Structures are given as C-alpha cells and as structure tokens.
C-alpha cells in the first residue's frame, strides 16, 4: 500500500478519530464481505484502527486510508483465525476467507458494500423491529445502549434482538448482496420503511426530552442521504425529502411543557427554513422524475405545508390533490381521513364531514382518536357545539399518548360548556 509520508499524524491521532467517525462503517461493511461474518468483521474493524493508531504516527497516513484499514483488518483477522485453536477444524472456511483476500478491492466495491450491508440488515426475513435495530447498529454504528434508550426497551432485550438477527443471517444463509433488478423495488420498499421507522421513532417522541431520540432523526436523515447517494431512486429522494421537512418543523410541534401544537398554531419562525428549502427541492426533483411513490407524495404535501408563510396561506387545493393521488396508490383509511380534512379546508366543513362520516363507520378508523378529533373540529367550525364536544370526548378517551390527551382536553375547554 503506498504511503504518503508527507502527511503527518498529530499526537492526538485526530486524523484517525475523524476517519473512524466518518469511514468506520465503510471499513466494517467491506470486512463483513471479506470475512463473511458480522462479529468477526466488528473485531477486525477495531483491530484495523488500532493498527493505524500504532503505525500512522511514525509512517504517515496512507494515500488510501480506507483501503489500508480494510487490508489491515482482514490480514490481521485471518492471522488471528489461523492462530485460534478452534479454527483447526475450520480449515476450509479459513482458506475460503484467505481466497477472498485475492479479490479486487476497487472503490466501487467498497461503496457497494455499504449498500450490501443495508439490504442485509433490512432483509424481509428479519422482523421489522430487528431490521431497525440491525440497521442502526451495523450500518450507522450506534451503540446498543443508545438504540435501546431511543426505543424504550432494556439494553439486554435489544442486544438479544441483534444477536438473534445475526444468527438468522448466518444460519439461514442470507446473502450479502444488493438485490437484482427484479427484486430491487420490493426490497427497497423494505429498506425505506425501516429507515422511516427509525425516523418516526425519533419524531413522535417529545422534543428535547430525549436527546437520543433527536439523534435518531438526524441518523435516519444521514442514512437517507447515504442511500440516495448509493441508489439514486425517486422514492429514496422522496423519503429523504419527507424526513428533512418533518425534521425542519420539529422544534415547533411541542410547547416547552410538552404539549402538542397543531399546525395552525405553530410558530413558523421556529421552523428551519433552510432545511425546508432543501427538503422541498428534493421533493420537487422526486416528483418530476415521474417514478414517484407514496414517500414522494407525502413529501410534496409536507413541502406544500412548510412553504406556506402563514397557515391561512396553505394551498389546500394542491394538498387535497396530492392526497387524492396518494389515496389512489395507497388506499388506507388514515390517508382517506387526511384527504377529507384537506377537502374540508378547501370546500368547507360540511363537504369534509360528509367524507369523514363513512370512514368512522368502518371499524378501522372508529377507534382512531384523530378521526374523532377531526370530526369534532369540523362540527365546531359548523357551530354544532354539542356534537363537537361528544366527538372530542370520544377522541380523548381513545388517545393513548398523554400529550395527545392533554391537547384534546384543551380543545374541549375552548369550546366551553
């Protein structure tokens, strides 16, 4: 490996620390391919960075540090595997591992390794919760404790989830590969769903209270950027846009006391307008590609809301149209509800109510507190206070989160006795 001795390494090894933060998971992803095992690759990654810390200060930083680390990790790991007495009965596997060393190691392969890692962690044979945990742990490199804290589960429970997922990948022989063209759309759906689940776990939490959950949003957005770079598909861009736009408004959606603030009452000065511009641009590009799907349409809706200077400026005709398009490709009752609310804003509460009533009859929305809250809002605007109060009460009784219950209680107090 060529070494550029002109670039010195300072005593604090800041170069190595930065490299670990930026490229540690790239090195790891390549080592998973080369060593064929998650745990061995994790160990080899640590060994490689330790080797760098001991050699670079004297020898200088190699010209291709990531490749150097991958080489160091695999050679030292193979040495260790050979020394390991248990490996004597594993000679075939050790030899196969050595053979893999001969494989070409061009930068493109290394980039693909990260995508291989993502698709493996999000394989549909793993449960969604296992896939989310695996992706955050293996792809993003988050500590098990941090993920456990964000998902409000005990660290041993989460560690166990990861161990089981790794066993399944090994035992069932889930391959380390990017799916071929036929399989890609379906498999990508799963990847995007896992990324969005990680994001919403951070988003639905009360802002500021739990820093780990705020990190989760940032991490999911970083992951979205990475996937978009590796796999520039419209829906990847759509999901990235959606996450950026939701994150941009995050600071305004909760009061300091932890109360939910509805869109019409949010302080738009608290929104991150630079992020909104970026998210809206991603949404626009994804929409223009002509291959957009549900994430792109949701992002376009979020962009439309976010770009209105005041609530009164909201373009409800555009939003209703986007919901109608979304409803065509994803006919879910919750989307139908949002569509009805947009229609109510465009054409008046009576029209919206006529759309919401049949949705509430269907049992799937009958127990959804937001559906009753939406009905109550429309009744309130129509001046039917008694009926509105009744609907708010139903909504309050069905709400599961404390902040949601407080919000509905506040609305009840506003309409008076």
């Amino acid at each position: 490996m060529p070494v550029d001795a002109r670039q010195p390494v300072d005593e604090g090894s800041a170069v190595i620390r930065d490299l670990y933060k930026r490229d540690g998971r790239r090195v790891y992803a390549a080592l998973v391919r080369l060593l064929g095992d998650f745990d061995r690759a994790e160990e080899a990654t640590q060994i490689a960075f330790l080797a760098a810390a001991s050699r670079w200060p004297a020898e200088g930083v190699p010209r291709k540090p990531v490749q150097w680390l991958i080489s160091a990790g695999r050679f030292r790991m193979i040495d260790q595997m050979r020394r390991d007495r248990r490996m004597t009965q594993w000679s075939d596997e050790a030899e196969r591992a050595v053979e893999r060393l001969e494989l070409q190691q061009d930068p493109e392969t290394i980039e693909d390794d990260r995508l291989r890692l993502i698709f493996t962690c999000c394989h549909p044979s793993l449960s969604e919760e296992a896939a989310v945990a695996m992706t955050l742990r293996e792809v993003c490199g988050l500590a098990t404790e941090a993920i456990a804290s964000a998902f409000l589960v005990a660290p041993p429970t989460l560690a166990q989830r990861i161990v089981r997922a790794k066993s399944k990948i090994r035992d069932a022989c889930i391959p380390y590969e990017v799916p071929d063209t036929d399989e890609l759309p379906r498999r990508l759906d799963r990847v995007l769903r896992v990324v969005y689940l990680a994001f919403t776990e951070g988003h639905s939490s009360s802002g500021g209270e739990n820093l780990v959950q705020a990190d989760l949003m940032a991490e999911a957005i970083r992951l979205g950027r990475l996937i978009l770079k590796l796999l520039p598909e419209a829906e990847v861009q759509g999901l990235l846009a959606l996450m950026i736009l939701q994150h941009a408004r995050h600071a305004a959606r909760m009061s300091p006391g932890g109360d939910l603030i509805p869109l019409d009452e949010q302080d738009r000065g608290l929104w991150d307008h630079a992020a909104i511009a970026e998210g809206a641009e991603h949404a626009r590009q994804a929409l223009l590609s002509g291959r957009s799907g549900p994430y792109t349409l949701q992002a376009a809706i979020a962009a439309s809301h976010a770009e209105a200077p005041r609530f009164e400026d909201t373009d409800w005709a555009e939003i209703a149209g986007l919901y109608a398009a979304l409803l065509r490709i994803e006919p879910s009752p919750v989307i139908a509800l949002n569509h009805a609310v947009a229609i109510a804003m465009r054409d008046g509460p009576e029209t919206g109510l006529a759309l919401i009533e049949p949705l509430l009859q269907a049992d799937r929305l009958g127990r959804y507190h937001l559906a009753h809250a939406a009905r109550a809002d429309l009744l309130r605007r129509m001046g039917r206070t008694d009926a509105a109060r009744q609907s708010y009460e139903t909504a309050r009784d069905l709400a599961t989160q404390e902040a949601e219950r407080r919000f509905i209680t506040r609305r009840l107090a506003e309409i008076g006795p």
Partner: protein
Amino acid sequence: MKYLCLVYLDRENWSSCPDAVCADYVQHLVENGNFVAGDPLHPVESATTVRVRNGKTQLYDGPFAETKELLAGYYMLDARDLNDALRLAAGIPPAKYGSIEVRPVRQLDLGDTISDSQS
C-alpha cells in the same frame, strides 16, 4: 411408499436429544435401506414464510402462525442462499393458496471429529 416424518419439539426440549444419538439412528436406517432424506432444522426463529398473492411474493419473518394451515407436503431444496431458496419457494404452486415455511437445514454437531460447529 415414502413417508415424511416430521419431528416436532417444544422449546424446552429443543436440544434435549444429542445429535450423536440421531446420527446413530440414521446410520441404522441407512443400513436397513429405510433412509431417503432427513436433517435437523435450525430453530423457528430462522424461518421465513413465503406466500404469493395476486402474483406478488410476500415474505414474513418466522413461521406463519395460522393454525388452520396443516402440513400438506414438503420439498427438500438445494439452493445457493436464502434469496435463492425464497425465489424457488415462491415458485412452488401451492404458495398461491397457502404458505411455504422455509427452514434452513443444519448439520449434526458431532464435536471435533466431524467438521462444522457454531463459532
């Protein structure tokens, strides 16, 4: 006449029977000409269930917990990896009507004398 004998074990007794005992019995069956194919499976956590509905392949983590569905047959497949096996399983005709549980076969763990063990 061939008979498929399915071994059911609860979690408590999953590892109760030593693999060496099973290997001896297989040897006995082979010697008497009764053995066609037989293997132990990895635990149910390693299973993936495949269904095909409206031409779309749906994959589920774990066994499909539909007690209504009863075992109706089996295929022993030789596939490159799980993705290959799932592709082949999706092609099994009854996948359109019921579900196919895909379980990786493991090798008997007979210690140092024969290769393969868990790390």
